[in-house]
């Protein structure tokens, strides 16, 4: 879908981060098979990244339209709460999935209507659900941490298919499905057009409002999926903490992936690599044995470094430098 060459900066950053972690903790790259299931730090990164990776898929599309979706963490809490409630009441997994995903879709449509049809600024429109969403989730769980014991549903969080943990399969599948949806149809092009110049797009007959609504709806669906994985993983719903601050990690993943917050050109693959970079840092710092207080600071330093290298100003400087070197090389 995206040409490999355009992914070089993100792949390079991921490689460097993984290499550094490998140097600090040599066991990082070892993958073993136990009980027919893959184990190892690298596999753990793939599992732990699932919520942020799923959120990043939807967030990429929203940001491409020049929007932002701050509510995804809260939507995770809402859908997690409803899933836990239904599972605890003994409903079968397909019903739980259907209801939770529908609820995520409704949340996304709500955001989309506020942004696309009422022309409320995206940051404000989605802030509403970000704040209210946790309240809704608490109402659903009755203010307690709701737990359940249902192996079928827990499979979403801790199961494995042919040795590969389910969360990895889910985020890969979601990335693939949404990626194909936007690139095999004209959705991707039209979304980019709206993000770059909404006025001009509307003047050529692009249905900008519908497209913007669709991106928020997809973002809601992705958040619902993420919410269920977290719920299945911890065998319960915590309305206060499920998905807390994850919207920020998702935005960061998209930005590391090179999609501008000013809208326009986007790449879902690059956003997924961005999510992997963030999760590798989290896991790497955890297993390095450093005190966890360092976690956030190291993460911030690395991210600043990545974004600096990607900034247009630095790119220009590097280009000048390269030209200079080339000219020097050509002279003698």
């Amino acid at each position, binding site marked *: 879908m995206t040409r490999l060459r355009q992914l070089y900066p993100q792949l390079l950053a991921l490689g460097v981060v993984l290499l550094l972690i490998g140097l600090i903790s040599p066991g990082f790259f070892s993958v073993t098979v136990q009980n027919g299931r893959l184990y190892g730090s690298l596999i753990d990164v793939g599992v732990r990244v699932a919520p942020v990776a799923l959120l990043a898929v939807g967030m990429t599309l929203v940001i491409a339209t020049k929007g932002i979706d701050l509510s995804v963490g809260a939507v995770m809490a809402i859908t997690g709460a409803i899933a836990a409630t239904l599972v605890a009441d003994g409903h079968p997994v397909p019903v739980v999935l259907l209801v939770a995903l529908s609820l995520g879709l409704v949340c996304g449509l709500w955001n989309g209507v506020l942004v696309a049809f009422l022309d409320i600024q995206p940051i404000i429109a989605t802030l509403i659900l970000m704040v209210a969403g946790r309240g809704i989730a608490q109402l659903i769980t009755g203010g307690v941490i709701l737990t359940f014991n249902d192996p079928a549903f827990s499979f979403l969080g801790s199961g494995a298919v042919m040795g590969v943990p389910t969360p990895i399969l889910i985020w890969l599948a979601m990335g693939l499905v949404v990626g194909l949806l936007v690139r095999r*149809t004209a959705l991707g092009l*039209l979304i980019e057009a709206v993000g*770059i110049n909404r006025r001009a797009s509307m003047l050529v007959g692009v249905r900008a409002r519908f497209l913007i609504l669709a991106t928020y709806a997809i973002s809601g669906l992705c958040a619902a999926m993420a919410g269920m994985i977290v719920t299945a993983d911890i065998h319960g719903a915590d309305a206060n903490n499920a998905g807390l601050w994850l919207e920020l990690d998702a935005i960061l993943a998209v930005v590391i992936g090179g999609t501008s917050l000013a809208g326009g050109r986007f790449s879902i693959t690059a956003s997924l690599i961005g999510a992997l970079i963030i999760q590798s840092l989290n896991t790497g710092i955890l297993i390095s044995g450093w005190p966890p207080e360092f976690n956030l600071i190291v993460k911030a330093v690395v991210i600043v470094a990545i974004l600096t290298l990607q900034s247009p100003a630095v790119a220009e400087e590097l280009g000048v430098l390269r030209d200079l070197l080339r000219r020097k090389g050509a002279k003698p």
Partner: protein
Amino acid sequence: MTENALLQAQGIEKSFFGVKVLDGVDFSLRGGEIHALLGENGAGKSTLVKILTGAYRRDAGVMRLAGREVEPRSVAEAQDLGIGTVYQEVNLLDNLTVAENVYLGRQPRRAGLVDRRRMRADARDLLARYGVKADPDETLAHYPVAVRQIIAIARAVDLSGKVLFLDEPTASLDAREVQALFDVLRQLRAQGLGIVIITHFLDQVYQIADRVTVLRNGRMVGSRALSDLPRRDLVAMMLGRELAEVTAHRDPGAVLSDSPAAFSFKDYGKRGAIAPFDLDIRAGEVVGIAGLLGSGRTETARLLFGIDRPDSGEARVDGATVTLHSPQDAIARGFGMCPEERKSDGIIGDLSVRQNILLALQASRGWSRPIARREADALAERYIKALDIRPPDPNRPIKFLSGGNQQKVILARWLATDPRLLILDEPTRGIDIGAHAEIITLIEKLREDGMALVVISSEIEELVTFSTRVIVLSDRHHVRELRGAEITAEAIVEAMAVPGDAA
């Protein structure tokens, strides 16, 4: 005359990035006169005003205020010298009170604190002199634009007191408010103030101004007393045509006036934008639309293309009534439009030339039926070749192309949809001469192929060259229709000078 000039500028020059926008401009304003500054877009009016009010520094030239040479380095310095400005968007703060706005930055003080009581009383007295009964404690947002405008003028005059610049002061006022504003201006003129007013409305110029200075392409065309300047001559000054010499090549084909119109608009209009008009457009003809800036040209195009909704009249395509309430409605009927503002309304800057070309076609097909890569490549290749788009690289982002080539891409975008009616709003503005000629040739070719075109242009010779009919607009009215041999540059200019309500 120069000896009694209040504000005088001579040989003003200014360049931006090596492009000369003002070239040896002279300007002279007397005390007790209202002086209109006129010119089409890009003539250099606002640059001149910004230099005279201290916002820009001039590159060369002399500026004298009451005979003394001055060099204001900022708006504040100009104010201290006695030169005040009121901009189009009133430069006051909506969330402060009326009194605070009048005295912002120079509040009367007592013992180091703002003396609010005195400020209120002063503001009330000051505004009363302008016939405004505004509560000094009310926030400014509470009052309509017209009142805010007068408050801004009161503040500017109170601050400066010798010269007042007004940039499009009447743009958002209704007729009654305009008269109230003009009363204030006449009062200030009687007090000996020199007033410069920039406006596009010729009616208002003749109503209020004593003299007029016309700029064109950064040069001064002339400065004349309005009392002995017929409206027609003023328009000619603004457009800069030596009308007698125009003998443009003209071959707009036969006028098929008796064949039924494919597109017919009856009593079509929108209050505040354009008065109701009748317009028939037949296949195989170019309807030229002429008019000065602000005469309702772009408003007409926006209405035809469904960007704005009409509040009167009906539209028919092939005899059947249609609703045109969005560009999508219009596109579904086979309309296409190249907007006047190419950068903000036309191009999708970061997308490639290919994607820009196929966008309109893709939008009309819908998102679920993508144009296959091979078809897109063929489409791009065809139009890049047919319109000679340079560089001929379909993958280059359109923002890196020159204005003329961007315009060709936008034309290609619509041609790809195979439109029946193409509306072009200033298709040749701001593009180089080569592309200019190519676009005119293209317009003629499309007409010969049987397409219906509506072309808005401020280049009168251009309209004469390719139009089958010309509709002339003035003051938001369609005032005149010229056909066949009637279409001459002279006749168009003559019609443009007719006040809109006289039609």
